[in-house]
């Protein structure tokens, strides 16, 4: 059952929901997680298992002159050493649709491009031995000139980061230059009553999942097949790239999804360790495990793109946006991968959350000799929302309008179609703003704030499910679910919606249980793999609840329809007048009922003994135009959030004391309030970390100076403000049971809310992140808000 079944009468009606919408079920992973029995990739143990270590480059750009592994190979207990020559010429990327842009070798052959680039690998009897051998690998480098910022990389004559010639090190660009009703940004700017211009800079942070990257590989020499457990958000992409690199069919790689300890976008790229583990497993015949250290997580793995943005916004005499021009430069680091889709998104966010009838945005993703950046919670929405929102703040002041009222004049609403193709369906943007105003009492308090006291708002929108399928699939289908119902009425679910901790498996099980009128105990969710579960592109782009959830519902409805056709015939009623409620199949009109097990058994009898199979899939009916700068509707629905922050700034130290944070988020129907609240709180703390605490610091040679949790500040339990949440907004017509995303776009309003509050508190104009105490203090000094004693 696919997308075209939207009008099917078999879908359960909201008044019949039992599990969904309340706090009526627990996490299906609960027992394993609270008893320590949940197995993450680094917990998997096999007899005779070997342990691997990666050797990385200490230079940001260098030619590899020689690699001497002889000493390493002699260490007792070492079972193998790999370098770049042990892999073919295939490079690794992210999506299949742009596989030709793949640029990362599993291990560098001739050139390293950032401090932390993968050079060699060792496998040994234990971690200590592997590290000892790794330290004995002698690599001779010839340092090459390097570039670290977008401007350095784009300058005339700058050294090339990637060999396939990129103009000015621009890896890729996304351009949106269009307007509704034939308008152009150029023309609209000419008639503007006010134009606000600004330049902004944001910094690099890292996902810091509590579980570092880890994988285990086993090889069957008889069938030539590998089994791989990987801490990943995209098992099918892993399978695709492994098959490519090893030059075999994907039927040789069985990727099993273990529990994953956090992702946030950082596990979207197939890491060097996975290729090395597979090659070692093949050579030694033994299982091989790699577990990344926290330091490796910081220096070698993806992070959030730093951004330099030039933004111009044109307003009419009422302060309504009429056009926008902007140039975004993303610091992509040394490789593409998941960063490529991020570039496209970066252009998209310039259109949010306002009606921008004429837009001219160019987004470049620039290669530099720094740690590659990729997908990270928001896909640049956090960066773009900050920059564009600061413009709104300045413009409101310049035009003498209250900042919230000013924004309200231009925000999107239901039915708006933007020039880049976005079609806004369900939208409670205005309501979230009003709720934030009511909570903060902004209008009553704004003229009575003490010096150093501020209230600020962040107003953003986001996609609820990117249609990007990652691999080439029929109909751009990206989510599927299969359920089996056996003769005891037990429902087995195969859905690889990639639970990376957000609760996708539980959501799937609950949707299916509710649709079939059962309890969670009747639903058996099978540990998915690339062989047992149908294709699902993975946990990214806020798609799992919307897409995989819809696929689950459809699979259940597909099975339900088969049962109803049988029982309906038996009772002489139309099939779609039946319903599944409370372990019964019922017909309300005729007051008939049959226990679930009996109904299933009867249906199987009608089917000659065949088990009941429910097949569901969901794809977003759109095109790939968006990736070519042409209008297309990016997502089947959009979400809208308002964050509001009350804080005081210590005028002597720049320290912030955030004592109240309100968050209103339109996610349609909350499938489970506990889960939604958890995601919203997590988003607030994540956004707080981005705005204030976290920063990857580099020296002048591109080396990360704080690759550890002592000097990289992740917010702790003592850092969080009191939080008030509101998420009870109307359901979306297309979301599963009316739900939309909740957990990615929700990070975007935090930085603007905090920045705007600081602006109100101190009067400083904020053009950059982070807003740590030193940065705030310096801004206050430079802008004359505090005296300078020389």
């Amino acid at each position, binding site marked *: 059952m696919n997308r075209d079944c939207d009008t099917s009468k078999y879908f359960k009606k909201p008044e019949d929901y039992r599990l969904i919408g309340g706090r009526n079920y627990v996490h299906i992973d609960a027992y394993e997680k609270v*008893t320590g029995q949940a197995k993450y990739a680094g917990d998997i*143990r096999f007899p005779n298992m070997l342990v691997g270590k990666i050797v990385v480059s200490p230079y940001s750009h260098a030619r590899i002159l020689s690699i001497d592994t002889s000493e390493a190979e002699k260490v007792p207990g070492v079972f193998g050493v790999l370098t770049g020559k042990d892999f073919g010429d295939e490079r690794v990327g992210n999506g299949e649709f742009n596989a030709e842009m793949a640029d990362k070798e599993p291990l560098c052959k001739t050139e390293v491009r950032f401090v932390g680039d993968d050079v060699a690998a060792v496998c040994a009897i234990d971690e200590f031995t592997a590290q000892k051998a790794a330290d004995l690998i002698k690599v001779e480098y010839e340092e090459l000139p390097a570039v670290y910022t977008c401007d350095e990389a784009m300058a005339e004559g700058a050294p090339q980061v990637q060999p396939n010639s990129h103009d000015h090190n621009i890896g890729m660009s996304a351009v949106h230059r269009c307007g509704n009703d034939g308008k152009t940004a150029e023309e609209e700017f000419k008639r503007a009553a006010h134009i606000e211009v600004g330049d902004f800079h944001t910094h690099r942070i890292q996902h810091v999942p509590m579980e570092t990257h880890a994988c285990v590989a086993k090889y069957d020499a008889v069938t030539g097949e590998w089994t791989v457990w990987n801490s990943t958000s995209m098992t099918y992409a892993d399978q695709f790239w492994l098959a490519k690199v090893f030059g075999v069919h994907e039927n040789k790689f069985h990727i099993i999804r273990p529990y994953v300890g956090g992702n946030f976008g950082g596990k979207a790229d197939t890491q060097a360790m996975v290729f090395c583990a597979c090659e070692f497993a093949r050579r030694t015949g033994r299982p091989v495990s790699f577990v990344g250290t926290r330091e490796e997580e910081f220096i070698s793995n993806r992070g959030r793109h730093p951004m330099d943005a030039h933004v111009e916004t044109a307003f009419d005499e009422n302060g309504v946006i009429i056009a926008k021009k902007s140039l975004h430069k993303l610091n992509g680091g040394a490789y593409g991968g998941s960063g490529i889709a991020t570039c496209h998104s970066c252009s998209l966010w310039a259109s949010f959350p306002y009606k921008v009838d004429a837009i001219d945005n160019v987004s470049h993703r620039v290669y530099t000799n720094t740690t590659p950046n990729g997908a990270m919670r928001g896909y640049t929405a956090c960066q773009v929302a900050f920059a564009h929102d600061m413009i709104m703040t300045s413009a409101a002041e310049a035009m003498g309008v209250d900042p919230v009222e000013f924004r309200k004049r231009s925000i999107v609403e239901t039915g708006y179609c933007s020039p880049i193709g976005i079609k806004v369906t369900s939208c409670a943007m205005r309501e979230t703003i009003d709720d934030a105003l009511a909570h903060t009492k902004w209008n009553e308090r704004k003229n009575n704030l003490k010096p150093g006291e501020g209230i600020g708002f962040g107003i953003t929108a986001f996609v609820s499910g990117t249609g990007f399928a990652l691999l080439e699939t029929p109909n751009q289908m990206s989510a599927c679910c299969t359920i089996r119902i056996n003769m005891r009425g037990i429902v087995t679910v195969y859905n690889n919606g990639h639970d990376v901790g957000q609760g996708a498996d539980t959501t799937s099980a609950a949707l299916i249980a509710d649709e079939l009128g059962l309890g969670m105990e009747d639903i058996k969710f099978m540990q998915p793999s690339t062989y047992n579960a149908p294709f699902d592109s993975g946990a990214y782009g806020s798609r799992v609840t919307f897409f995989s959830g819809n696929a689950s519902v459809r699979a259940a409805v597909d099975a339900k329809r088969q049962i109803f056709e049988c029982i309906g015939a038996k009772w002489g009623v139309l099939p779609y007048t039946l319903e599944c409620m409370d372990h019964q199949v019922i017909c309300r009109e005729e007051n008939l009922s049959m226990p679930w097990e009996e109904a299933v058994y009867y249906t199987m009898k009608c089917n000659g003994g065949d088990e009941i199979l429910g097949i569901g899939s969901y794809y977003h009916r759109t095109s790939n135009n968006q990736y070519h700068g042409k209008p297309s509707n990016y997502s089947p629905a959009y979400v809208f959030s308002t964050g509001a922050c009350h804080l005081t700034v210590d005028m002597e130290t720049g320290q912030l004391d955030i004592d109240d944070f309100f968050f209103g988020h339109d996610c349609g129907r909350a499938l489970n309030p506990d889960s939604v609240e958890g995601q919203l709180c997590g988003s607030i703390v994540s956004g707080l970390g981005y705005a204030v605490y976290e920063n990857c610091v580099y020296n002048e040679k591109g080396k990360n100076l704080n690759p550890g949790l002592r000097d990289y500040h992740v917010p702790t339990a003592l850092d969080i403000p009191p*939080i008030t949440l509101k998420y009870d907004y109307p359901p979306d017509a297309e979301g599963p049971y009316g739900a939309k995303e909740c957990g990615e776009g929700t990070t975007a309003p935090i930085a603007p809310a905090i920045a705007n509050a600081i602006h109100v508190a101190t009067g400083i104009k904020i053009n950059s992140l982070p807003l740590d105490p030193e940065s705030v203090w310096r801004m206050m000094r430079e802008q004359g808000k505090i005296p300078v004693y020389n």
Partner: protein
Amino acid sequence: MKKKIVTFTLNGEETQVLAPANMNLLDLLRNVLCMTGTKKGCEEGECGACTVMINGRPINSCLVLAQSIEGCEVTTVEGLAKDGVLSPIQKKFIEKWAFQCGYCTPGMMMSAKCLLDRNPHPTELEIREAIEGNLCRCTGYVKIVDAIKAAAEEMDWEEQA
């Protein structure tokens, strides 16, 4: 590498292991005893994922040499449930939806246990201080604090009952 026989109490049972001199308690638990409930997050005592209880105190097991726990009483997440019955802390973590990816959860619960054993009626600030050394990237801590509060109340009720 010099190995030594180390005898200690693990989750209430006397345990003897052969521990290398350069092994930390975290690796002893995970690799020698194959008890992977205690997690590895940073190996420098900053994230708290490896928190265990040693002689009643919450300790980062990544910073303890395996040979130094001779004679100690060690409790890990595997020791929270008794005879298959989940402890109040575990029950409340489930009820309050206090975990998402679950990776910080064992360490969080061990810090919570150490707190509640020593201070059965903690204030919210005391709860936050007790878990300050346990980093979480998923939940934003709010529901974790709620769960620990609820566990304290339940344990109080059980005591009085």
